[in-house]
C-alpha cells in the first residue's frame, strides 16, 4: 500500500530526483501525518464547540440581564414587605411603653399575612382578566414580545408568592393554608362592596341639595299661584306684605299635604 502510493508519487514528481532517492527513508515518520491529520479536525471541533458554547452562554446571560431589566408587571408588593418586615422586626427596639414585647404577637402576624393574601388575590384577578386580551394582542402582533415576557414573569412570581403564603399560613395553624385564600377572596369581595356603597353614599349630599332647591322652587310656584288667586278674590284689603307671609304658610301646608297622600297609596303597594 505504502509502496503503491510512493510509486504514484514517483510517477507524478518525475523530474525530482532527490525525492525519488529518499522515498525509502520516509517510511519511519508515517505516524506523524496521522497525528497532524487528527489535530486539525479536533482543533476544528474544539473551536466550533467552544464558540457555540460561548455564544450561547453570552446570549443567555444577556437575555437574563434583559429580562431582569424588564419593568415588573406590578408595583411593589407593599403588604408582603410589611409582613416580612414584621418577621424581621426586633420587637424590643420597635415597641415602647412600660412593658416591652418579647416577640411580635401571632395575631398581628396573622393579620399581616391575611392582608398579604388579599393583595395576592387582587393581583391574581388582574392577571386572569388581562390574560385573554393580552394573548390575542400578542398573536396579532399589536403589542411587543416584551410585554408578554413581563406578563409571564409576573405569573411565575405570583405562583411562587401563593405557595409561600400557603406555607406561612400552615405554619401558623394546620390547614389554614387551604382556606386562607378563600378568606382573602371574601375580604376582597367585601372591600369592593363597601367601596361601592361609599361611592353611592357620596351622591346623597348633592342629591339632597338639589331636592331642597327644587322643593323651594315648587313652593315659590305655589306661592305665586296662590298670590294670583287671592289677588283676584280679595282686592286690597290686606296689605301686600301680610298677604305674602300668609300665602307662604299656605304653600307649605299644601306642599306637605300633597306627597303625604301619594305616600299613603305607595306604602300599601310596598307592603304587599
Amino acid at each position: 500500500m505504502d509502496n503503491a502510493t510512493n510509486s504514484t508519487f514517483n510517477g507524478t514528481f518525475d523530474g525530482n530526483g532527490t525525492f525519488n532517492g529518499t522515498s525509502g527513508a520516509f517510511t519511519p515518520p508515517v505516524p506523524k501525518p496521522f497525528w497532524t491529520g487528527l489535530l486539525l479536525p479536533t482543533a476544528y471541533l474544539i473551536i466550533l464547540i467552544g464558540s457555540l458554547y460561548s455564544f450561547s452562554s453570552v446570549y443567555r446571560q444577556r437575555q437574563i440581564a434583559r429580562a431582569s431589566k424588564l419593568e415588573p408587571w406590578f408595583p411593589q408588593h407593599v403588604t408582603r414587605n410589611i409582613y416580612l418586615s414584621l418577621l424581621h422586626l426586633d420587637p424590643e427596639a420597635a415597641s415602647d411603653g412600660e412593658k416591652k414585647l418579647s416577640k411580635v404577637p401571632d395575631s398581628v402576624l396573622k393579620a399581616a399575612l391575611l392582608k398579604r393574601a388579599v393583595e395576592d388575590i387582587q393581583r391574581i384577578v388582574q392577571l386572569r382578566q388581562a390574560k385573554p386580551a393580552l394573548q390575542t394582542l400578542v398573536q396579532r402582533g399589536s403589542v411587543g414580545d416584551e410585554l408578554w415576557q413581563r406578563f409571564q414573569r409576573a405569573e411565575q412570581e405570583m405562583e411562587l408568592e401563593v405557595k409561600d403564603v400557603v406555607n406561612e399560613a400552615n405554619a401558623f395553624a394546620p390547614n389554614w393554608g387551604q382556606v386562607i385564600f378563600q378568606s382573602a377572596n371574601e375580604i376582597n369581595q367585601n372591600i369592593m362592596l363597601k367601596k361601592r356603597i361609599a361611592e353611592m353614599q357620596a351622591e346623597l349630599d348633592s342629591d339632597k341639595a338639589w331636592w331642597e332647591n327644587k322643593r323651594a322652587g315648587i313652593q315659590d310656584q305655589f306661592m305665586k299661584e296662590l298670590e294670583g288667586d287671592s289677588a283676584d278674590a280679595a282686592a286690597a284689603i290686606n296689605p301686600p306684605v301680610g298677604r305674602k307671609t300668609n300665602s307662604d304658610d299656605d304653600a307649605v301646608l299644601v306642599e306637605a299635604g300633597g306627597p303625604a297622600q301619594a305616600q299613603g297609596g305607595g306604602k300599601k303597594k310596598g307592603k304587599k
Partner: protein
Amino acid sequence: MAAPEGPETFTLLPLHLDAETKALSSPNTNLADHLDELNRFHRHIVALDTPNQNIPPPAPVNPKRSVQIGKLRESGNASFKKGAFAEAVKMYDLAIRMALDRPPWEASGLVREELSALHGNRAQAMMGQQAWPEGALDAKISTEMKRVGNVKGWWRRGQCLKEMGRLEEARDWLRQGVEFERAGPEKANLGELEALLRDVEGGLAAKAKA
C-alpha cells in the same frame, strides 16, 4: 425604594409596634392606609373566640352577630308599623352599621343579602318621612346589593324618583328593573313594577303635551 423585589428579597419597612394596643404604625406615610386596615383585621382577629384565635373559613359565620342584626331589624319593622319612621330609621341604621362591621373574612354573599334587606327597609322608612333623596339612595344600594329578586327595591327607587319629579330617570330605572326581574324569582310581583312604569310614562306623556 422603587427597586423591584424578587422572590427572595424584600424591602425592609420602618414599622412601629405599640406594646399596649399592639397597633402598628410607621413614619412612612405611604403605609398609613395599609396599616390602618391591618390594624382593623387585627382587632377582628383578637376578638375571635375560636381556639388559638385561628381565622375560621368564610362559610359558617358566627351566628351571634346575625341574631343581633335580626333583632334590630325586627324592632325597626315594629316601629315602622307603628308609624314611628324616625325610630325605625335609627334601628335600621344600627343594623346596617353592625352588618358592615362584620369580620372582613365572612361570606360576602351573606353581607350582600343582609345589606340589601336593611337598606330596602330603611328606604321604606325614609319614604314614610317623605325623605325622597335618602329613600332613593337606600333603594339604589339595596338593588345594587341584590339585583334580581328585589322587586321592592326597584319599585321604591322608582317611586322616590317619581315623587321628586325626575320622571325620565324613573322611567329608565323602572325599565331596567323590569328587565332584571323578568327572569327573576319574583316574577309574580312584576305587575307592581310595570304599573308604576305605566304611571311614570303617563306622567311623561302628559308633561310632553303641556
